[in-house]
């Protein structure tokens, strides 16, 4: 009797397992198939890429070399790395002290400062782009360069400040008090006590900032569009499609090459990513 009962229960559990996992596989197909079709097309010949075929007749690995050697492609890489790399470094250095003050100092106007950071975080870049463009292009004559994209990152990024603050709130004040009792000033407390504990938060911010710059389309379109030597991958990729508008195979190969670094980096830093996304949403 009791055996039959547990039997029924376990068969229900098996059904549940099968149901959940088939749903999981169906969802996985939705997320994975675009990548698969992308890769398959990137390996087709020029002619076949224009047909309805899903599977390559011949495997044209040379497509990747062709894309790589397209004039400009390497320049776009260099520009993107410069924008994303230097930008990320500047963002982290300038945002950490701000986030620390917002999380751990008590001062008048603290709430207001945080509200303004959030308002800045929510501001669509298009709202302020006209005066900013006029400032960089007409006053400083720096359009067609990466400077208008990189320099602002030296003045704290609202999203990074917010995310870091969320993270620093989770560090107990007792650690800071202990350091202060030992005679540390705020700068030394920040550098010696807080920074080592905040590494995961800083990693998350750095990754988000890196991808934000890597993926940025609007900024390069505004400041760099008239000088192909200053294009980044995101902007260049779209014009690549324009110049090769019949070659879906080459376009998809270029697309794969632009996506690849992001995905590779993700596999090295999964934890930091997931932590970052969680912090923005859950521990508000």
């Amino acid at each position, binding site marked *: 009797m009791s055996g039959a009962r547990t039997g029924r229960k376990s068969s229900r559990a098996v059904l549940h397992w099968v149901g959940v996992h088939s749903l999981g596989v169906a969802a996985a197909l939705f997320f994975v198939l*675009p990548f698969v079709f992308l890769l398959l097309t990137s390996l087709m010949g020029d002619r076949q890429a224009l047909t309805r075929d899903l599977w390559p007749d011949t495997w044209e690995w040379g497509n990747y070399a062709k894309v790589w050697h397209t004039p400009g492609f390497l320049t776009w890489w260099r520009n993107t790395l410069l924008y994303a790399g230097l930008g990320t470094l500047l963002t982290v250095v300038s945002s950490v002290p701000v986030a620390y003050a917002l999380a751990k*100092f008590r001062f008048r106007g603290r709430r207001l400062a945080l509200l303004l950071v959030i308002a800045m975080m929510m501001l669509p870049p298009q709202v302020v782009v006209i005066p900013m463009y006029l400032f960089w292009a007409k006053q400083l004559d720096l359009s067609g360069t990466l400077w208008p994209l990189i320099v602002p990152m030296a003045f704290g990024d609202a999203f990074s400040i917010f995310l870091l603050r969320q993270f620093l709130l989770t560090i107990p004040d007792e650690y800071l008090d202990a350091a202060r009792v030992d005679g540390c000033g705020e700068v030394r407390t920040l550098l010696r006590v807080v920074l080592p504990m905040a590494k995961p938060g800083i990693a998350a911010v750095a990754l988000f900032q890196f991808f934000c710059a890597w993926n940025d*389309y609007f900024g390069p379109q505004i400041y760099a569009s008239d000088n192909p030597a200053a294009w980044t991958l995101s902007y260049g990729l779209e014009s690549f499609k324009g110049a090769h508008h019949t070659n879906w195979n080459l376009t998809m190969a270029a697309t794969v090459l632009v*996506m690849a670094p992001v995905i590779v980096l993700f596999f090295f830093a999964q934890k930091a990513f997931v932590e970052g996304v969680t912090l923005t*949403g859950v521990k508000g």
Partner: protein
Amino acid sequence: MTGAHPLRSKRRRSALRTAAFLSPWLIGFAVFFVYPLLSTLYFSFTRYDGFRQPAFNGLDNWSYVFTDYPLFWPAMRNTLWLVLVMVTCRVAFGLGIGLLITKIKTGTGIFRTLFYLPYLAPPVAATLAFVFLLNPGTGPVNTLLDAVGLPTPGWFTDADWSKPALTALALWGVGDLMVIFMAALLDVPKEQYEAAELDGAGAWARFRHITLPNISPIIMFAVVTGVIQAMQYYAQPLVAGKVAAGVIGGSGQQFEPGYPDKSTLTLPQLVYNLGFQRFDYGTACVVALVLFALSMAFTALLMRRRGGLIGAGE
């Protein structure tokens, strides 16, 4: 002096210290927020092409945008469509995937990675991929639909299907919402489910009366941030429209934005169209301010003192 007012000098030192730590952002706030915002407001009342001095023209730009500019209301309607439909679909799908991942017991890590990866795909790359995948004649999606006898829509080339196509693209990148929903779902106290199960509550009743109330702040957060993202929606609709229309990309290209038939036009694109293609900075600033008013209204919802979603940590 320091001897006479030790407390005051200590306070002043701590205020200076706070200002020093905040200084990168204080400068950034003034230079990249306050100054351009005030300038945008000023330009919106002027005729300005970037070369001649701005000339005050009162409310001309404002009345032009709201009554005569043929692209404004289509862009507004599209933006509202995206806010309503795309955000709803994304939140519902993200919650579904979040629930699914908490139920999966075998290979969780693999599933989670697969669900998350598309979120990382650069928007321009992902859009190019989807324009290809949803190519009406030869794309793999319609090939598969055709093979099982389903209708094959025109997707990015059909004004009725271009926004659903953008929604499909947005659903593909739902990984961020999956992660925050998953974290929130795992935080729901187990005892509540056990108690409900003892009371004989079914799966739906448990979801309705325990899960939903527990995660409703996160749902609100996802909705409000989704709305703000939808209002900033730029690269995807622009690139989808241009590529589907076969416009050659690159510098100074003039094209009718929003292909097909203005259906992929959004408010941020108008700022670009007016400012950087028609060199009508004054009118572009009006659209920018409309966008600003909309975003800040939703941001206020996120930050209300009581029941707000982002506390100031007091």
